């Protein structure tokens, strides 16, 4: 979460005007208070909304990230109801995943649809989906613990329920109740602000590569899920697997390439499996980014040389 916060701080300083500091503090207070509203839902139930997508749309995703993180910090430190050690994970789910995912879904639907209805549809879809995905992340973070942390007797040290329980337990209530509260409340507040003070909703600049980096970050974080899939991916079978599946190994494949990769099966000796997996994902992504940047540089240099000589 630390790189996200550092990036958010520098981005906010650039994007938000000089009035940034008070707005961040007051935005944090607003996001905190938003979580205290009891939203009435059809059927007589009530729910609470986080407002991540709403904040991302009206304040910008980076400012929303910082505001919600601060609200979570205040909740943990000032009220002492727990949540200090979980602050990083909570911030990741509620201050990073929810605003960014919600914002990008909103922009995508709004730009494709064009018009008021598309805007509201984007808001509803963005807030609903981003909250459900945040719940999914939380469920994974919890459910992965019995896999990672086991005590002497092999019993889970912390959260005891595996993913098969934690995912439906977390995601279903969010899909059924909380997501609906979030979507309904977000659209309603946005409608109100639009009606009363339309100038407040600033037109945010088009996100360029930011979306790509965000998606990359999300994929890297999801990569340990690959560890849970046993067996090889479709089409990536080795000769042994093929032999089991078909009963024989095709002649052409028997004497084929045997490529000894640097990190065979994404494992590094002495480092626990999941850690190595994520490291491989990060390193792999970084290597690709570096490679493309170097290629871009080489292209620019050759173009410059061509211009100078021609």
């Amino acid at each position, binding site marked *: 979460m630390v790189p996200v916060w550092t990036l958010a701080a520098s981005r906010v300083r650039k994007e938000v005007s000089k009035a940034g500091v008070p707005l961040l503090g007051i935005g944090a207070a607003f996001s905190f*208070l938003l979580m*205290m509203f009891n939203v009435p839902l059809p059927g007589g139930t009530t729910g609470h909304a986080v407002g991540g997508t709403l904040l991302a749309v009206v304040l910008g995703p980076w400012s929303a990230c910082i505001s919600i993180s601060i609200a979570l910090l205040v909740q943990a430190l000032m009220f002492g109801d727990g949540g200090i050690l979980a602050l990083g994970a909570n911030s990741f789910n509620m201050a990073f995943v929810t605003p960014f995912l919600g914002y990008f879904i909103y922009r995508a639907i709004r730009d494709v649809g064009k018009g008021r209805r598309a805007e509201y549809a984007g808001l509803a879809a963005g807030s609903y989906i981003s909250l459900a995905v945040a719940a999914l992340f939380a469920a994974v973070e919890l459910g992965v613990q019995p896999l990672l942390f086991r005590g002497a007797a092999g019993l889970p040290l912390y959260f005891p329920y595996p993913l098969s329980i934690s995912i439906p337990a977390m995601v279903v209530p969010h899909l059924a109740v909380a997501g609906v509260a979030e979507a309904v409340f977000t659209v309603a507040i946005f409608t109100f602000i639009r009606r009363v003070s339309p100038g407040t909703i600033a037109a945010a600049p088009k996100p360029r590569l930011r979306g790509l980096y965000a998606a990359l970050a999300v994929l890297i974080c999801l990569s340990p899920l690959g560890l849970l899939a046993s067996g090889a991916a479709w089409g990536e079978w080795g000769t042994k697997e093929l032999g089991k599946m078909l009963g024989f190994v095709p002649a052409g494949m028997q004497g084929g390439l045997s490529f000894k990769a640097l990190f065979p099966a994404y494992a590094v000796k002495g480092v626990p499996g999941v850690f190595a997996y994520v490291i491989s994902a990060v390193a792999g992504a970084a290597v690709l980014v570096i490679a493309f940047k170097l290629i871009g540089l080489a292209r620019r240099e050759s173009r410059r040389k061509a211009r100078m000589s021609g």
Partner: protein
Amino acid sequence: MLPDWLLREEEYLPKPDRDAFIDRSIGSFLSLLSLFRRQGGKSEEKLRINPGVSLASTLLLIVLLSLARDYLFVAYAGALLLVMLSFCPAELILRVLKTSLPIGAFTFLIMLPSSLWGNAPSLVWISLKVFLSVVAVKLFVSTAPWESTLRGLRIFMPRLFILVLDITTRYLVLLGELSLHLLRALRLRSVGRNGGKVASLAGVAGTLFLRSREMAEDMYAAMECRCFTGSYPLGGAARVSAADLVPVALDAASVLVFVWARTR
């Protein structure tokens, strides 16, 4: 001469409606504001412990507690926290227990199904750890007023962040009171069956947002008029005194006990 309709008996019976959400929202805002009022009156502390040291000690205890692998350290932490609680006034003890006991019980309930497939030892283990962690944090929060906590956080964060936190807490009170007024107004105007419940609540939240924007702009204008240049001198650096040796010594003891528990 009074008109006829004025002389007629009023027979209006408002229809019942499900608007508990207004009262529940009012309730949550009231509890927030009462917490602030409680915090505000507490500036005298028995022992002048530097809040930064206090915060670091609390965090250290929570981290060690979560890393502990057997009951030795948990027992030590439990004893330590009980001794600390025993030094506190009765209302504080009640307040701390009122939050931590339900949280511990809730954890126990959630973990209960897992005991069906042989996870029974974890049941007490985790619930106890959670209970003790919450007691530790609640003790810290109740004995260190928010302003000193902010000053203590200086070790962990850049000054600008502390400025933002400071603004956040002040505006939590201001915006919280505004929300309360708006919700009470909504409550008074909710007679009989009302449609558009979500829209009304969204109006409260939306008004809150617009007021937040205005307040932010006003605040920035005021800061600029007073020559705010981005630096935030935290007045009155919290001093490190002899009383701070107590938490430091306790921290050292905790680390020793933890290491001993791990290596034996």
